[in-house]
């Protein structure tokens, strides 16, 4: 029973966010930033062994705050490297590491992407380079600055992710929680641990003439040699490109190119984003996902907020 009580208290915290957003018309700000909790609960992982499949989350694979391994020069921590503290960017997480020794070996088959993957690095701003914003048109750059300033005042805008509506693209692909890929005839399914997000990539049809608008869009895919190319449109314009709040419109078009490297130990992704409404021009960025057979995706009920995890004062998942 004690676990239920604790669940209920978390539910309150979650729905307070939702209520605040709703009462203020969904576009206003929250009353208070998440409290600082050193450590906090990271995206949970579980061993893949049959012995303890739901045991306590091990430390392996937890994203850690700060620059990732081999990240090189110091990170830019304000928008445009302006030094303006009101434009401070949320520092990235280090992200996933390679699977620990003794894990199941990667599958070298380039066309078999099945398994659990976790992104290396977790950027809150998804521009062409770390710390650089997307090439937003002036109106939307100003909006991004407003959103960053609101966050830094401790009153972040209650965005669609906060309200358990959906992350949108490309934001959902940057979540530090694991992604499980399942391949069945005619489709590739992405089961995201974060907020039980789902992407279905149809390999057997083009985009419909009038696709249903959804938070993660209508995705179709095909293979170009060893590269899976995924084309996504019809993305709900209420969502953002990234956590900091770069805007996209209903005309956003996302092209993802996935290719296994290093014998299948890593999945390289190049994302290209086009949006004639909010962007000056298309842009691309790259990511690496680690093969993580040691991770078993866990239940994550955003609507209950059982995984609202403040790390160093920042709520990394709502």
């Amino acid at each position, binding site marked *: 029973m004690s676990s239920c009580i604790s669940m209920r208290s978390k539910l309150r915290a979650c*729905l307070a966010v939702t209520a605040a957003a709703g*009462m203020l018309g969904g576009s206003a700000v929250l009353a208070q930033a998440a409290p600082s909790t050193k450590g906090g609960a990271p995206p949970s992982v579980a061993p893949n062994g049959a012995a303890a499949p739901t045991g306590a989350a091990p430390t392996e694979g937890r994203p850690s705050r700060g620059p990732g391994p081999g990240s090189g020069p110091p990170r830019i921590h304000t928008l445009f490297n302006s030094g303006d503290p009101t434009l401070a960017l949320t520092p990235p997480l280090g992200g996933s590491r390679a699977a620990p020794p003794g894990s199941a070996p990667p599958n070298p088959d380039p066309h078999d992407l099945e398994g659990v993957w976790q992104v290396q690095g977790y950027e809150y701003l998804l521009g062409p380079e770390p710390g650089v914003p997307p090439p937003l048109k002036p109106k939307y750059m100003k909006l991004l600055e407003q959103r960053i300033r609101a966050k830094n005042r401790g009153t972040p805008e209650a965005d669609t992710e906060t309200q358990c509506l959906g992350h949108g693209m490309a934001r959902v692909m940057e979540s530090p929680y694991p992604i499980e890929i399942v391949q069945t005839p*005619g489709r590739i399914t992405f089961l995201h641990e974060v907020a039980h997000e789902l992407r279905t990539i149809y390999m057997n049809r083009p985009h419909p003439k009038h696709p249903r608008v959804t938070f993660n869009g209508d995705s179709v895919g095909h293979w170009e040699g060893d590269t899976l190319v995924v084309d996504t449109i019809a993305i709900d314009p209420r969502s953002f490109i990234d956590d900091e709040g770069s805007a996209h419109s209903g005309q956003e078009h996302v092209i993802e190119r996935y290719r296994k490297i290093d014998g299948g130990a890593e999945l390289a992704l190049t994302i290209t984003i086009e949006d004639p409404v909010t962007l000056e021009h298309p842009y691309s960025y790259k990511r690496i996902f680690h093969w993580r057979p040691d991770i078993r995706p866990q239940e994550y009920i955003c609507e209950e907020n059982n995984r609202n995890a403040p790390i160093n004062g920042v709520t990394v998942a709502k």
Partner: protein
Amino acid sequence: MRRVAFCFAGLLAMAGTAWADPPPDAAPGQPDLTGAWFIVHPPHALKTVDGSLPPLTPSALQVYRAHLAEAKRGDRAAFDGTTRCLPPGLPRLMLEKKPFEILQRPKVVYFVSGDNRLPRRAYLGEKLPDDPDPLWLGYSVGRWDGRTLVVDSAGFNDETVLDDAGLPHSDQLHLTERYTLSHDGRHMAAEFTIDDPKDYTQPWTFKAQYVRRPGYEIPPEVCMDNPARRAAAMKATEEAVK
């Protein structure tokens, strides 16, 4: 009833397409459950296979009667978290009008619900953990018994009910599901056994039928985008923070 008729029409139109294409790794002769499934008769109040009231313990019967009364006076929210987008739990998730998709793979069978995109994973060839953490959808393991997929689940929290009417269960719920594909591949018979020593005097069973809808793309529903449920979630929050 109209919807069921529509399902069958869809079946006839698409007969011989999707299920003729087994997953690449399916063992020879192994049934392929991959695809979108609709329940034929979604139940409201579960009964045992012989049509009786399930064998509730006296205290659970009191809880059930309270739920029935709450529903009658229009206060489902008192026992039904789905009114504010909490997961329906099991077996209720499998008994909804909304379809679910099965993704059958050699080591895991995935069930992805049309209700708020909720996923389940049944790990094949594994044993249930001794002391699983309480979850909304529990922890599931599976095995093949001939043409039947047997899924064993435990580790549920006690915040959900078994059916729309409000049959209670405890955190001791152990659910066994048996899914048997028809020989023509178009239907699936399911048998659910509820073993919950806290709330029921003995294990009991009920059945359901599903129909496959080849080629159907289940919309990725987002519950919180439903204005009524969203409003209910906010109302519950306001009451909770008072």
